[in-house]
């Protein structure tokens, strides 16, 4: 066969075979990689609901925005039922407006499940509250009395506690008045 045809043909065959192998491997691995990447990007969300299939954004009502809530996401099961919601809040504590307390609170089955503080500039009593609320059990997060007063009694902080408690109350009210 003529050299001019043989060489590019051979290259083409090799290229085609290799391209095929690559496409096959890609087909095998692509979905897994994408799912993995999504899990990693949403790590903060999976802390609240480890069993969720996926998360979707939800719209904020005006009352929520007024209560310093900056975002809301619904956690969905694999058959698209809402298993709970995560609210992202930014409230002003004792440290002031320049360093707000930023946290996410998850609510399911009418109770506050978990609070994760992602940023704050608090010190002393405020800091004590921050570290306590991150580790608090579900019972502590849902006291029978006023949330602000009970938490203040436990941690000694008043201003930061009240700010967070008001926001959490608003989220709970939104959750209970909403879809579930």
């Amino acid at each position: 066969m003529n050299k001019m045809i043989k060489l590019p043909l051979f290259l083409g065959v090799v290229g085609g075979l290799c391209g095929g192998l690559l496409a096959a491997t890609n087909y095998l691995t692509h979905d897994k990689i994408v799912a993995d990447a999504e899990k990693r990007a949403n790590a903060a969300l999976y802390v609240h609901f480890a069993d969720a299939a996926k998360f979707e954004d939800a719209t904020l009502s005006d009352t929520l925005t007024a209560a310093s809530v900056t975002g809301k996401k619904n956690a969905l099961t694999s058959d698209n039922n809402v298993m709970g919601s995560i609210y992202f809040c930014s409230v002003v504590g004792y440290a002031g407006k320049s360093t707000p307390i930023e946290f996410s609170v998850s609510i399911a089955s009418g109770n506050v499940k978990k609070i994760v503080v992602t940023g704050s500039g608090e010190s002393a009593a405020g800091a004590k509250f921050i570290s306590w609320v991150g580790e608090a059990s579900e019972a502590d997060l849902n006291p029978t009395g006023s949330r602000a007063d009970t938490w203040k009694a436990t941690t000694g902080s008043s201003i930061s506690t009240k700010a967070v408690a008001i926001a959490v109350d608003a989220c709970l009210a939104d959750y209970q008045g909403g879809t579930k």
Partner: protein
Amino acid sequence: MQVFSIAFAALLGSNIILSRFLGICSFLGVSKNRKNALGMSIALIVVVMLSAIICYGLGALLTLLGMQDYLQLVVFILVIASFVQLLEFFLKKFIPSLYKALGVYLPLITTNCVVLQVCLDIMSPDYNFGTMLVYAFAVPAGYCLVMMLFSFIRTRLELNNADTPKAFQGNAIALIAAGLMAMAFVAFSGFAF
């Protein structure tokens, strides 16, 4: 300002040789002779810049077709290899003195990690065409800087070879010298713009 921070990071802060460990083989192999080091560095700047431009375009095409995940490596390395062949041919015909000076180091640029790494880096969505050009110039410029500095040090090491313990002569003492250089360059990593 962003351009400056990219250039500074690529040149000094995360220097491609001392911080990211790329291009080490040529770093050790070529730096014994100052002239070779300079020739290699300049050839590398040319190859990296032009390959980056070609790979940027091809990368955009692949992304459009959705095949970038699995085809980009094969396509890029073929582009680089062909480009180096072309450059060799071009230099041999039009600038034979440079071709002779570079000698065997020109085809070795194909296997130089720096070229491929830059082409893979610019696939990131952070870069537009302008910042890509800056990056593609600053990285081999950083390589050039470190190569030249190291060749000065290496020349002295070679001259004082008798003083070096026998086990360390050659590449071992060169590696330790490179380690000291790396320590010095850590100073640049603290800058934030």
